[in-house]
């Protein structure tokens, strides 16, 4: 068994040889693990010694791997920061690139501000709707009709809520396209990209969980069909369906689950993500302004 374990340590050593810096820093740790095997075998039963030895190898591997990843990312960031326009690039193309960069970044920031505004509108109108909305099978449709017809400005609030939700989905998708198109010109956009994707997903989630909240015929049957789709997901499908519906069929419990997801989990996530998205885009603009290429196109005198 120890021969096999030592062979495993040898493989790890061979792999770590590919990363000279990390090998320099951590090879004595690997040596320590290998050398300590004889002590472990002396002190513990064979199975326990093997277990401890393997645990040390796994820990070492995870620790060093994390450093390898971090160092690589740092190098990529440093390289990106020190990128200067090639010498062959004429002044005209540099100014053009700077102008394009400025346009893409400013557009992304403006879209993020709009997304945050829509999130705010959706949240505010959602809170107002929650005063009268009843998340029960009997009361849901009736309460929404009441909001639309009897409550002052209820119809306006409901429409604004729907509009803000749908607008958020559309804007998030446009934002992803803008960021995708500007990816070669922008630096350190990764955080904004990831938060943008998550924001789009949460906006879609908000829209999806709202399907059943109106408790009308279209919403009910659409939700039933989509639950069938969810159920067909391998391994976890039926579990997820049960969690969402809270039982075998769509009932008041389902409505309460959807209401909770819509009003608390996804709504809070969307607001936080849109703030994070905007913040990362502002940081991105600031970072770019500190680089050598001027972002804001100077006015030609």
């Amino acid at each position: 068994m120890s021969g096999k374990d030592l062979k495993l340590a040898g493989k790890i050593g061979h792999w770590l040889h590919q990363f000279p810096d990390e090998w320099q820093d951590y090879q004595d740790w690997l040596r320590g693990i290998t050398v300590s095997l004889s002590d472990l075998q002396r002190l513990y039963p064979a199975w326990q010694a093997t277990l401890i030895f393997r645990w040390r190898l796994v820990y070492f591997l995870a620790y060093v791997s994390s450093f390898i990843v971090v160092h690589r990312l740092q190098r990529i960031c440093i390289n990106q920061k020190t990128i200067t326009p090639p010498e062959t690039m004429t002044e005209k193309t540099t100014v053009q690139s700077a102008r394009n960069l400025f346009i893409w970044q400013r557009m992304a920031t403006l879209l993020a501000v709009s997304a945050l505004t829509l999130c705010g509108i959706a949240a505010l109108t959602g809170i107002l709707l929650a005063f009268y909305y009843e998340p029960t099978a009997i009361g849901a449709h009736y309460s929404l009709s009441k909001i639309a017809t009897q409550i002052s400005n209820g119809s306006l609030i409901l429409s604004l809520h729907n509009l803000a939700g749908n607008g958020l989905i559309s804007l998030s998708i446009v934002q992803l396209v803008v960021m995708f198109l500007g990816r070669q010109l922008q630096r350190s956009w990764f955080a904004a990209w990831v938060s943008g994707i998550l924001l789009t997903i949460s906006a879609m989630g908000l829209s999806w969980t709202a399907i059943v909240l109106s408790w009308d015929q279209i919403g009910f049957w659409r939700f039933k069909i989509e639950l069938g789709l969810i159920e067909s997901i391998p391994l976890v499908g039926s579990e997820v369906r049960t969690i969402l519906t809270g039982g075998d069929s769509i009932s008041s419990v389902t409505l309460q689950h959807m209401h909770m997801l819509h009003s608390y989990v996804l709504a809070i996530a969307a607001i936080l993500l849109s703030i994070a998205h905007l913040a990362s885009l502002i940081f991105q603009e600031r970072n770019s302004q500190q680089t050598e290429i001027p972002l804001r196109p100077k006015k030609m005198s």
Partner: protein
Amino acid sequence: MGNQELRLTPNQEIILATLRFRKRYGLEVLQAIEQSGGKQIGFNSLYPNLKKLEQKGFVKSDWGDDPPEQHTGARRKYYRITGTGTQALESKQSLLERVAHWTLEPKEA
């Protein structure tokens, strides 16, 4: 160097203490702690702590003359304490002394 920069964690303190009078390699540090009945530190936290101490400038490492380990080809590194490391250790010990000798001053009536 400020007190903040000389700060040591309990594990770092005991590791540094083993290096006070002689240079040692990783496993020897661990053995010195175990055999002296000191505070036990985990194997997995030894090398990361040695690395942190090296980054702080409290220890320096040199390659030993021992041949590379046959399975992994890894070499042995010897660690020795630096002047800053000694200063950090002394600062910690003087703090303990001060704490031990501190008494409540009588309040004026």
